[in-house]
């Protein structure tokens, strides 16, 4: 017999029939019954996945990151392995394409860096990790929870920090898990968008936005404090379409962003002075009589008061002096904006991360409203919407065990996704503390103190503010449990880490807060390693809790992510999307059936007066000015402004750790204006130290005139293996609004200051 070649072996191995018969006679002798020394492999064959000759199985997925675009994904699976992903062609928003991050998803699922097993650290930050079985991990956690309950008489010593790392609806089962254990402490609010959310609720009675797909109808678009060229790439085609149809695209931003580069006109506003700039425009429009007299008379209250305020307190020169934008330029864009029909403003989240952020959003709303652009297709004060999020929140709504004791007093809302509002007259409730001041709250909370912290869908040591203080707060905690996919800076400080599934490994459902598409997320591949979904973790914990103390946890002890996804749907939600069963989503994403692409098109608002409120008593009741008006920014506490916006290669602390991102963006930089750098003797590429009252960051400098001379900029994010953390420079000062709808004020991320020297 001639030697069998490598090529022949590979051909034989490729085909299940040929490879199973290759050693046929040999295996038939029963040689495999006894395999001395073999400890892992077992006799017998397994299905290696369906073989699709040259083809792929496809699955429906949905990007669950905290992103405008919430892409509908088609994933391609071969032999049980995810091979590649692309944007779903059915969605006219995603339109068949993904972003730089989305295209890297295969790298995420199959990264050798994933957390694979439950593990326990012998001393936080020591790097001394031992593997645990899931049973061992659940036992340790359950015993700690029961010990806290025995010590304090309640579970208020157990706190949850969870936010937007995964927006799949069943992930609210983490909150459900907490409720199923008892009344606990919840870190509530959001670092993202709450000031603007409250502002729009005061002005209009709800936060609703025009369908972004109607942008091509606009004749004038101002993108104000947002950078969709990086952060909402799928919206860019609609902006381009508007430009092609003759619209002018203006970008207002302190930084010359990639979006600004695509605009017809760039307006460099002084950071935090957006309100002044917009008030100057309002005053000029008022003076020229270019406002929509009919609309404000019919559909608003408080306009005369606003007009009087403008005449008394605002001049275009004052606005120019405050905002740094020349008066002539303010006048020009004001006139153009007021005379274009329709005209629209995209109000970015960046511009409301200020101590006057909510007040500024109210002013931008007013500018759109007084020009008659609210309720118009192609118009609108576009911020965000949540009307497509009408799920059952089945996973979230769990009952406390009988006899649970908790916080005495009113509670709520617990974040923007808590639609149950403020609850008065309840015997016990969860204790709520401000997520944007996590460190301070952990340090200050007493009776009982926060003893144990559960972290899910969040990387608090990269994303929460004042990292030095956070490390101190962690010292106070008796146990920290983190569920995550990668060894980030929070996992470094955990006692127990639990591996969680990627969305390709579980079922879920996702809506967007920007566009109006709904996407099913099917399980495309089996979970790798020992990863479990958040609700499977809750079920495993419940099982152990009930073994140790029957009745101590109400969460079901077995769950199926597909069943739980199905239970999130109700008739109202299905009707909104014009489908009769959630299963229809397996054919592709569907879009909400809107009566108009513009909310408020009937001119009836959800405010107490049913009109647009330039003067809002509700706003006053919540501790702010009733009238739309200027609010001073935060006084500088150091020599230069510090901005820490979103990178193109990451969503907060996700994605940057992947190899494909590192290939293009291998290290963080601080971006400095050449003049500012020259004054400090800093050259391009120099190692520098950025410092302020919070702490310091050491990194390399890049010189660019894209940032203003008074500003330092570094993109937030978590780099694998690097100590870089911009939260060493960001304190936890609150923004003005946010408590009304989310239970805690927002945070003034962009009202930070620092200085820089050569390192």
């Amino acid at each position, binding site marked *: *017999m001639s030697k*069998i070649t*490598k090529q022949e*072996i*590979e051909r*034989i*191995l*490729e085909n*299940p029939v040929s*490879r*199973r018969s*290759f*050693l046929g006679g*040999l*295996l038939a*002798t029963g*040689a*495999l019954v*006894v*395999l*001395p020394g*073999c*400890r*892992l*492999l*077992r*006799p*017998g*064959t*397994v299905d*290696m996945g369906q073989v699709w000759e040259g083809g792929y199985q496809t699955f429906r997925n949905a990007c669950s990151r905290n992103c405008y675009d919430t892409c509908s994904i088609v994933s391609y699976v071969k032999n*049980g*392995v*995810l091979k590649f992903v692309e944007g779903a062609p059915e969605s006219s928003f995603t339109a068949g394409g993904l972003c730089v991050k989305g295209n890297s998803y*295969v*790298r995420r699922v*199959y*990264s*050798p*860096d*994933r*957390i*694979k*097993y439950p*593990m326990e650290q*012998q001393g936080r930050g020591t*790097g*001394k*990790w*031992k*593997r645990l079985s899931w049973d061992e991990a659940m036992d340790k956690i359950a015993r700690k929870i029961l010990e806290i309950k025995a010590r304090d008489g309640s579970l208020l010593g157990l706190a949850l920090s969870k936010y937007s790392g995964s927006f799949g609806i069943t992930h609210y089962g983490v909150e459900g898990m907490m409720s199923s254990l008892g009344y606990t402490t919840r870190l509530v609010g959001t670092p993202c968008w709450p000031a603007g959310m409250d502002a729009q609720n005061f002005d209009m009675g709800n936060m609703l936005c025009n369908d972004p797909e109607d942008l091509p109808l606009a004749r004038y678009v101002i993108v104000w404090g947002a950078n969709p060229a990086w952060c909402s790439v799928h919206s860019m085609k609609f902006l381009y379409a508007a430009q092609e149809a003759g619209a002018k695209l203006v970008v207002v931003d302190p930084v010359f962003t990639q979006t600004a580069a695509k605009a017809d006109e760039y307006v460099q506003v002084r950071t935090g002075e957006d309100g002044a700039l917009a008030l100057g425009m309002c005053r000029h429009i008022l003076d020229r009589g270019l406002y929509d007299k009919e609309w404000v008379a019919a559909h608003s209250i408080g306009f005369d008061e606003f007009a009087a305020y403008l005449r008394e307190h605002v001049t275009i020169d004052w606005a120019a002096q405050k905002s740094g934008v020349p008066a002539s330029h303010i006048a020009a864009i004001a006139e153009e904006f007021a005379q274009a029909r329709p005209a629209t403003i995209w109000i970015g989240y960046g511009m409301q991360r200020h101590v006057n952020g909510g007040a500024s959003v109210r002013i931008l709303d007013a500018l759109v409203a007084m020009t008659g652009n609210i309720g118009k297709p192609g118009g609108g004060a576009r911020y965000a919407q949540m009307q497509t999020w009408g799920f059952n929140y089945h996973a979230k709504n769990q009952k406390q065990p009988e006899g649970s004791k908790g916080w005495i007093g009113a509670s709520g809302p617990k974040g923007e996704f808590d639609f149950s509002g403020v609850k008065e007259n309840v015997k016990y409730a969860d204790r709520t503390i401000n997520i944007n001041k996590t460190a301070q709250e952990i340090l200050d909370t007493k009776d009982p103190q926060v003893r144990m912290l559960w972290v899910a869908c969040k990387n608090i040591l990269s994303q929460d503010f004042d990292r030095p203080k956070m490390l101190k707060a962690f010292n106070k905690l008796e146990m920290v449990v983190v569920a995550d996919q990668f*060894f980030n800076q929070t996992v*470094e400080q955990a006692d127990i880490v639990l*591996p969680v599934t990627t969305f390709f490994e579980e079922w879920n459902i996702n809506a967007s807060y920007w566009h109006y598409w709904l996407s099913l997320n099917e399980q495309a591949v*089996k*979970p*790798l*390693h020992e990863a479990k979904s958040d609700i499977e973790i809750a079920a495993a914990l419940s099982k152990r809790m009930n073994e140790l103390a029957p009745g101590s946890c109400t969460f079901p002890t077995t769950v199926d992510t597909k069943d739980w996804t199905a239970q999130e749907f109700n008739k109202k939600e299905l009707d909104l999307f014009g489908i009769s069963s959630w299963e229809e989503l397996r054919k592709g994403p569907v879009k909400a059936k809107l009566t108009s692409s513009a909310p408020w098109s009937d001119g009836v608002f959800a405010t107490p007066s049913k009109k647009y409120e330039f003067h809002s008593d509700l706003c006053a009741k919540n501790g702010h000015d009733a009238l739309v008006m200027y609010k001073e920014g935060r006084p500088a506490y150091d020599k230069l402004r510090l901005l820490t916006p979103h990178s193109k290669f990451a969503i907060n602390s996700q994605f940057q750790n992947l190899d494909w991102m590192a290939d293009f963006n291998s290290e963080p930089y601080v971006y400095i204006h050449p003049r500012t750098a020259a004054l400090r003797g800093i050259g391009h590429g120099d190692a520098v130290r950025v410092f302020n009252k919070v702490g310091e960051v050491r990194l390399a400098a890049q010189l660019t005139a894209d940032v203003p001379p008074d500003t330092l900029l570094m993109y937030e994010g978590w780099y*694998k*293996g690097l100590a870089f953390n911009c939260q060493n420079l960001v304190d936890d000062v609150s923004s003005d609004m946010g408590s009304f709808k989310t239970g805690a004020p927002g945070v003034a991320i962009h009202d930070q200051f620092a200085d820089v020297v050569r390192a």
Partner: protein
Amino acid sequence: MAAACATLTKAAPPADGHPASADTADELEYAFNRLFVGPGAVPAPPYASVYLDPDHGLMGESTRIAAAVYDALGVSSPSNGRLPDDHLALELDAAVVFHALKAREQSAELAALWDYFLRDHLMLWVPLFLACIKQVPDVPPAISHVASLLSAWLSEECGAKPVTHVPPCIN
């Protein structure tokens, strides 16, 4: 894991001749996890595809080849796909199966399949994996010892001298 560590410490007598203490067993476990398990990114991932596949990820073509070899041998991993089939532990287990079968029967097909698995799979990645371990400072002697045993075994199987040329670490 503790039992595995105990085996490891026995396999490599400490340089100073004292028996391994509980502390060293713990330290060995931490070091083992830092090298191969996690939760942090590990310097020497014990999966063939990380070294052989162009994307350096898990569940690549080399993973599938390992699974196909097991299938041809009539064995399979009980992990149901959760542990990639090209994990070193499974591949060494397959080597045990090969040797058990070879000891019982003469078969040209078996010899050819083993030769393929050894020379066109194991030998292509295990030296790279061992090189990655070598680049890590302060690897406990027990782990270095087992690594050198693995290296020597591979060389012996190939009928060659011990591997002296160390390829560069890919990580």
